[in-house]
């Protein structure tokens, strides 16, 4: 996703990851094929998510998703 431009917007990549990997509708059971171990990745990411230092670094240069950029 090279088209993602770093811009001064309200949304940070960490905020997106926090929501997309761990929130919303989580369907359990055999019906879902799990191709990547999202749970495990999110666990690792949790440390990053609560790290104020990381957020501070991103504060000056948050990422925007393609849609938000187009608005």
């Amino acid at each position, binding site marked *: *996703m090279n088209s*993602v431009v770093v811009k001064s917007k*309200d949304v940070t990549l960490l905020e997106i990851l926090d929501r*997309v990997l761990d*929130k*919303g509708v989580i369907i359990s059971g055999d019906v879902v094929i799990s191709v990547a171990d999202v749970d495990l990745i999110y666990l690792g990411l949790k440390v990053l998510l609560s790290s104020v230092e990381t957020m501070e670094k991103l504060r000056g240069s948050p*990422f925007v998703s*393609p849609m938000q950029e187009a608005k």
Partner: protein
Amino acid sequence: MKLYLYGIVDSSDQISESIYGLEGAGVYNIPYCDIGAVVSETGKPIRGVTEGAVLEHEAVIEKLMANFTVLPVRFQTIIDSRDNLLSMMQSYHKDFKDNLARLHNKLEFGIKVIWPAEKIKANIIKGFKKSKQKNPEPNSSQSKKFIAEKFEEYKIEKEFQAKADKFIKVMDIFFSKFASEKKLTKLKTENLLLDAVYLVEKSQEGNFREAFEHIKGGPPGLKYLFSGPWPAYNFVILSKQSGLLTDLQQTDILDKVTQCQALVGANSI
């Protein structure tokens, strides 16, 4: 063909604009009664969690948000067939309907507040030292000193927590005025004073943003992170933890789908 699921929407109509999802695949709506599951077809092995894939997933949800109420589905949710998708929809139908109704016309906003924890603790300690100088303790035994030290640590922590509560309470009064639901986490880390998400009616978005600007102008030394609008990721409540249905149940569902179609006048499933 496997189906990559992005979200559940409050419509059984087809998506009017062209939306492309992961791997550039076309996104479409599979109706179930009066709601729909937004998917794209996937045949190739899916790549892992990459920044690009996460952003593509999120971009689809944001596009859907413009026209529908959306229940965003977690990244990398792949259903192995259309029949299984429909059985899942049947199984969660009430939950999805309840959530779609509750979250209709509402947006999620995230607020993080960072405070200088070390400085605040130092100020508390300074205050305690001053009061100690005024009322010096008589010479006491080692064990009494140890207990006194532990008690002081406890008092510092208690005061620190009380200050956090006070700040959060003031901020929350402003935000709550314009929010219909909220989730607040205090001191996730010592510096992260508040990690909050608020669910706000679309009509209140301007007021909510104004409240944030007002809070930002408050005490110096605090830093604020604002994000949104998001679909209501943090406010989806599922009562059902369901899995795959039996063959018999699936047949039953397909019958029910046909009945639903007739009721809502959908063209095809």
